[in-house]
């Protein structure tokens, strides 16, 4: 198995799906000749031509709208938001149209659409290039929101998203793009949407996370293991709908739960995860459910010092994990 980066897994999934299914096409700002600002669509223009790799104007509402129309018509569009921060003008299209099409038409129409969007900070991108926007979409039934953390999951879940008959928001952590590498089979496979995965087995505390912070948790778990603290780490992978069964199972395992995400704490995915655990397994809890998340300030600061304050890192994660273990 080849070891490839997170972003190469994106490209590989797109290429294989476009080769497999003529209906699949990508569209977005600079995805064509330029190959994407992060190079996620690198080489696709050359291979599939301008009709299947479409450069769009800087108009996210139009990108989403065109993609929804194409999906309703029977195509399999993969629209790219250059940064998740830019998704705001497209929210009306996504939430009011794509998410509700099947329901509104009583199953006559559906919307097999994928919207990819790089999110997250730690890349010195400041306000408009660092936001985590996933929580905004997590109360919209009709949408699926995924945020894989490993190259294997990226490829498998992007393929699953493209083959899904309903709209999927596919969030890619941009700091992971070149930082995270892993084994990815060259063969065709999918990873089911809606299933969390235990990335590490443990006894003392349960850590639930996704995206970049999941890797922090895994790193720290490795270190804490040397001190005799054993952490059970669950990767949510799909943020909406949540895999409640896996969450409850993981929480029961140790009775001590820490939820970690980079997004703001208040109103973040972690609150919903905590609520699921509180509802389903109160009598298995041995400690208050903890959340470690970004601060509740409007946006990622530009100043490097403040960016570090905003971002989680292994040290902050270690302090939180150790504190819970000692409780």
């Amino acid at each position, binding site marked *: 198995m080849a070891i490839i980066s997170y*972003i190469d897994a994106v490209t590989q999934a797109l290429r294989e799906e476009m080769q497999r299914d003529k209906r699949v096409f990508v569209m977005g700002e600079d995805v064509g000749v330029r190959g994407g600002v*992060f*190079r996620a669509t690198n080489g696709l223009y050359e291979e599939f031509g301008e009709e299947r790799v479409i450069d769009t104007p800087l108009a996210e509402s139009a990108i989403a709208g065109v993609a929804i129309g194409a999906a309703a018509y029977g195509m399999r569009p993969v629209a790219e938001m250059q940064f998740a921060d830019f998704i705001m003008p497209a929210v009306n299209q996504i939430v009011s149209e794509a998410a509700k099409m099947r329901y509104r038409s009583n199953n006559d129409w559906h919307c097999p659409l994928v919207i990819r969007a*790089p999110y997250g900070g*730690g*890349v*010195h*991108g400041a306000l408009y*290039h660092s936001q985590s926007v996933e929580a905004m979409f997590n109360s919209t039934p009709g949408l699926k929101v995924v945020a894989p953390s490993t190259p294997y999951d990226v490829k498998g879940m992007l393929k699953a998203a493209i083959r899904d008959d309903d709209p999927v928001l596919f969030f890619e952590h*941009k*700091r992971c*793009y*070149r*930082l995270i590498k892993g084994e990815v089979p060259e063969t065709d496979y999918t990873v089911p949407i809606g299933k969390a995965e235990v990335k590490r087995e443990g*006894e*003392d505390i349960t850590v639930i996370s996704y995206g970049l912070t999941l890797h922090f948790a895994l790193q720290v778990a490795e270190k804490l293991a040397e*001190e*005799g*603290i*054993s952490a059970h780490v669950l990767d949510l992978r799909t943020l909406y709908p949540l895999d409640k069964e896996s969450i409850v199972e993981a929480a029961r395992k*140790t*009775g*001590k739960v820490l939820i970690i995400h980079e997004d703001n704490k208040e109103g973040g995915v972690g609150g919903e995860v905590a609520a699921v655990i509180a509802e389903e397994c*109160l*009598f*298995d*809890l*041995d*400690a208050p459910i903890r959340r470690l998340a970004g601060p509740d300030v409007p946006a990622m600061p530009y100043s*490097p*010092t403040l*960016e*570090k*304050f905003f971002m989680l*890192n292994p*040290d*902050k994660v*270690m*302090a*939180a994990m*150790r*504190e819970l*273990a*000692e*409780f």
Partner: protein
Amino acid sequence: METQVLMPQLGESVTEGTIAKWLIKPGDTVKKYEPLCEVTTDKVNAEVPSTVEGTVTELVAREGDTLSVGELICYIETRAGGAKAPVAAQPTDTKEIASETPAAESPKANIPLPSKGSVVNSAAKAAGKRYSPAVMRLAQENNIDLAQIGGTGREGRITRKDVLAFIENGGMTTQSAKQPGPINEEEAAMNVVHVESPSQTAPAPSVRPAVSTPEINAYPGDTEIPVNNIRKTIASRMVQSKHDAPHAWTMIEVDMTNLVKLRNSLKAEFKAKEGFNLTFMPFFIKAVVESIKEFPIMNSVWAGDKIIMRKSINVSIAVATDDALFVPVIKDADQKSIYGLARAVDELAAKTRHGKLSMDDMSGGTFTVNNTGSFGSVLSAPIINQPQAAIISMESIVKRPVVVDDMIAIRDMANLCLSLDHRVLDGLVCGRFLQSVKQKLEAYGSHTSIY
């Protein structure tokens, strides 16, 4: 001042870069913003500009090396003198100021560690007896009286794992080594203690009295210094040596007057010619090594059922830094001149100060020479550097009135102290050995050649 140039962040999402080509070489003078090297990443190709004006002293990365953002690529010497300071090649660096996060600081400082010492005490602290839902449920389902369980959680809280362990042990509290938190053998030993009247069903466990190692707490205002690996190693080696080897100790006085004169006559010229200071250490090592040749048993090791006498004479020298002690080794010290020994001492000391000692530098010692005089000591009882058989220390050279030929004279005197492993060595041979060292030190004079 020497400035470290680090791999800059060359674009969003870029985490590493490859040095394609150096545009400068050591010795070159660079202006601020002048390009230092070409770097390629999978996203961009760029030149790394200098952050300072100065002279390039060392290229750390080589062409073709791939480095993470924030890793060191080269050193530039700027005009002002002083200590090294890391500077990212661009203000965008995100790695270097790693120590600031307050969260990383140790939330432990003011939180008592789980379950040290008496559990009776800590269980009492968990007064109010608040139990988590998991603990309550387990206690009910298994008919357990929670008062019987010692808690290992914060402030003696009974955790779910404590209850599970209690059930697993058939109603006895034992603290498994898997408990979170730092646990060492001493603590584990102490933890056996706290089982107070276990449940009716279980056989009475043997309650051993506490090996009285009282819990050591920090008082308000105290500073807790975490023990790093070097400190841990020093601690365990010292304990092991004191524990395993019965230390005997002896001391003699040596008249160093002639040696002091000799060194004074040589040191200015030596410094000018060789570029480093001529100390007493090489003369001392030379005398020790020559005496070991006469009494080879000094150069041996206790091996349980036998004593191994080493052929090579590799002298460990104790070199202290501000917070640690290292014993790098001069290999085959018997084959070196005084100059050769001086050079070896200087090199090893420099390596130690710069943290560049290799495993090879540190291993293979057969006898240790310790220069305690360098910090003014006149008497010391060194701990033997295991598994060696002895360690000698040279104390301060001080002017003292002494009797020479029934006259009182002012002489430069020094004490030599020897700690010996009494399993291997006895007083007689050590006394003879010291006399030999003494004779050799006193025999140095204007005729002595250091080369």
